[in-house]
């Protein structure tokens, strides 16, 4: 399994980790477009380098990786963000995914898992860990009960999507889920992707509505 033609940018403020990952990926044939340790230069570099995949750590110290994820995915078409973080799968991972990240992987994942995840992210698949599936499930349920005082109907999961997400959260692979639910492997991937896309769309509409209501210009005051 090689990286073929996928270019990757590594954003992580920890040099040991950053260089280690970059070396692992180079060894496996990926092109490392750039590495950087902070969110501001990440956006600047990504604009020029336009990598296929940005490996993004959320805990960047100075600024939030969530905001960088939002800007990169909105501004640079063709660049996808894969969150590679250690932060015990808390709310910030969910926020990053809502902001546009295509998936999430824990840092303790093996190199093989990482390579596979980057390859899948590059072709537009969603990369889900069990932990992220649990967070997304929880988020849909939260929205169904407390819709953020919006006129906009919160997105809902279909029964099938709920089923698939639950299986992902219990650690089943796409192939195992496909067997269990008697659907194709591709359909499983599509269901997972669709749960993310609905969440991201809703989030973007909400942010736009909020910005208009509060008279904020597009790149003005942060929304929190």
């Amino acid at each position, binding site marked *: 399994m090689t990286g073929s033609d996928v270019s990757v940018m590594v954003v992580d403020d920890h040099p040991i980790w950053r260089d280690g990952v970059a070396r692992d990926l180079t060894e496996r044939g990926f092109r490392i477009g750039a590495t950087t340790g902070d969110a501001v230069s990440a956006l600047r570099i990504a604009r020029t380098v336009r990598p296929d995949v940005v490996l993004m750590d959320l805990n960047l110290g100075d600024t939030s990786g969530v905001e960088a994820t939002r800007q990169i995915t909105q501004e640079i078409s063709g660049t996808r963000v894969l969150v590679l973080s250690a932060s015990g799968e808390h709310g910030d991972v969910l926020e990053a995914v809502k902001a546009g990240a295509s998936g999430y992987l824990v840092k303790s994942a093996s190199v093989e898992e990482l390579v596979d995840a980057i390859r899948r992210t590059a072709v537009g698949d969603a990369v889900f860990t069990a932990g992220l599936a649990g967070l997304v499930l*929880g988020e849909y349920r939260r929205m169904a009960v407390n819709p953020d005082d919006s006129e906009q109907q919160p997105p809902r999961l279909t029964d099938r999507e*709920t089923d698939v997400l639950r299986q992902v959260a219990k650690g089943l692979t796409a192939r195992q889920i496909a067997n269990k639910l008697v659907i194709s492997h591709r359909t499983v991937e599509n269901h997972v992707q669709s749960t993310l896309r609905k969440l991201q769309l809703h989030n973007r509409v909400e942010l736009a509505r909020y910005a208009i209501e509060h008279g904020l210009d597009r790149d003005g005051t942060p929304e929190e």
Partner: protein
Amino acid sequence: MVSTGERKAETSGGAEESRRRTTPRRAAGLVTSTLVPESAGEASSGGEAVPDGRIPLWRAHNGLRILTLLYALVWFVVLVSDYRRPALGTAVLVGMALWTAFTCWRYGKPSGRTNTMVALDQVVTMVLFALCYFVLTERQLDLGLPTVVTVWHASMVTAAAVRWGMPGGAVSGVAAAAANFAMRGYIDPNMWMDTVLHIAIGLLLGLASDTARHSTERLARALRAEAATAERERLARDIHDSVLQVLARVRSRGSQLGGEAAELATLAGEQETALRALVSTGPAESVGGSTDLAAQLRTLDSERVSVSVPATRVELPAASVSALFSVTREALQNVDKHAGPRAHAWVLLEDLGTEVVLSIRDDGPGIPEGRLEQAAADGRMGVARSIRGRVESLGGRITLDTAEGEGTEWEIHLPRGESEHGRSAGGTRGQHGGTTA
């Protein structure tokens, strides 16, 4: 070690302050400098965030004192021409006014509400009351006309009750009533009423003061516990995000390289395990007897156990949380024992509003058909029975789904009591797409 000083300053600055700050950057010195469990306690031991519940009582006391002074002034104007010693009467009234001003000023500040001050208040008030004996004529005393101090006298009882609670209030009330009997030298129904009022004020206000003091203490304790828990969770998160990652990296890379590096990798791995265990202490009970099961389960997350929980809190009664937590731990230990050290396990917690669903799955060899029945017949169903028993005693139900080669999956459904619905993040419109068990 710049980070050491900075982090210490932060913890002593109070939990609120440290929570507001963004997560500090990863620092190599993190563990050595801040992994001191006591620091969580220090950070929150201030307690000044909780205002004393007795402050309104002191304000009421001051108000009563001023009001009764005005009342006394009215009677003074009416009676002064008939006094035996009007000059002394005037002096008593001026003394009352000065003492009212002084006590209101002292009791208006926390530093003035001392034992000495309240004791002095008792003496001064009693002396002013006693002087009235020389101000009023015998006839005025016999007729039951008010003394110069009138009901202002009672303010010593309220002060004692607020400061010392029920016993202090009662004693002061009895003293005030006794002084009244002593001055008049006779007993009539009016005076009995005064007596009852004096003692009742002392008792009731004392009770209010005791209650306010206890609830202030309880609130301060609860806030301290909450701050300590938040601090501990933050520390655990920091360590999880930084040191553990480096150790994990050293371990995985080292074992790939082999040789001496592999030995170092083993050492790093041991430290990683030890540190993970150290930061994985369960969070303390929160206010109101309910705790967050999600936070508790997250502490079980490790290399081989993946814990999936919602980002929102999953509140359940503390007893249910600790029972579900220990059931989960037991099930995971069971995975270790039967599915081997290579097996992975996944814990999924879902909050459907009306019920909480907890699934524990492993990818071990599973249990072949008939083995469970066989084990039950042999009386070797210890763990399964203990888990089932505990879940059922909580009012929940549990299913076990297993087949040879397909791992084992426990699924626990625990309905929420009626009273808990409001508190939950979920609702009845859960999108649960049917169970897989």
